[in-house]
């Protein structure tokens, strides 16, 4: 069975500090992986995606993520956070070939303090 675990429900960082949000996945094959961000009263917005190839993928607004098959992880990183990055971040798995039903992580609420 496919699953996604975001072990940190809440993360607080100071503005200008670096950020890592953790995501662990379980999949029988090589999944497609995504990070989405959700601002209050909005839908989910795609930050970045991984299908194959270079394990480090770049996204919008300075976000990047690194895929690790050995660690079954897809952690999100940002070098310097801004207060506007405060939001809920979801790690999402798509089973890949033949699969359409995505699996959502439980989300990590990020608070950037001034």
């Amino acid at each position, binding site marked *: 069975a496919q699953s996604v675990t975001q072990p940190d429900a809440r993360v607080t960082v100071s503005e200008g500090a670096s950020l890592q949000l953790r995501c662990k996945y379980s999949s029988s094959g090589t999944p*497609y992986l*995504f990070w*989405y961000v959700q601002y209050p*009263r*909005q*839908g*989910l*917005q*795609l930050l970045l*995606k991984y299908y194959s190839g270079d394990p480090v993928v770049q996204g919008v607004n300075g976000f990047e993520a690194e895929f690790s098959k050995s660690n079954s992880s897809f952690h999100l990183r940002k070098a310097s956070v801004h207060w506007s990055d405060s939001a809920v971040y*979801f790690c999402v798995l*798509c089973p*890949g*070939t033949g*699969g*359409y*039903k*995505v699996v*959502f992580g*439980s*989300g990590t609420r990020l608070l950037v303090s001034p």
Partner: protein
Amino acid sequence: NAGVIQTPRHKVTGKGQEATLWCEPISGHSAVFWYRQTIVQGLEFLTYFRNQAPIDDSGMPKERFSAQMPNQSHSTLKIQSTQPQDSAVYLCASSLDWGYEQYFGPGTRLTVL
């Protein structure tokens, strides 16, 4: 590109009333998904259409929920005899096809009194 459009953004119904939620997917996208989001359950899959055909409705509560996609430009989610436990944000998403990234609408917040 206006993105995925969902209307209304907010809907308040009384217990037992009907609610119809609308979704306009991104033009050219063949896959349309409906999800329900609550604080307790998180994001739950409801149903999936591909090229307007219903593919999987395994997440839909059977008796009161139904979804349709009469044409490629819109889909509806209908909830009959709404109950307080139906209160949630209902999200619609579309993608080029299965396996591709999904683009989400802003959601419809349904409140059942």
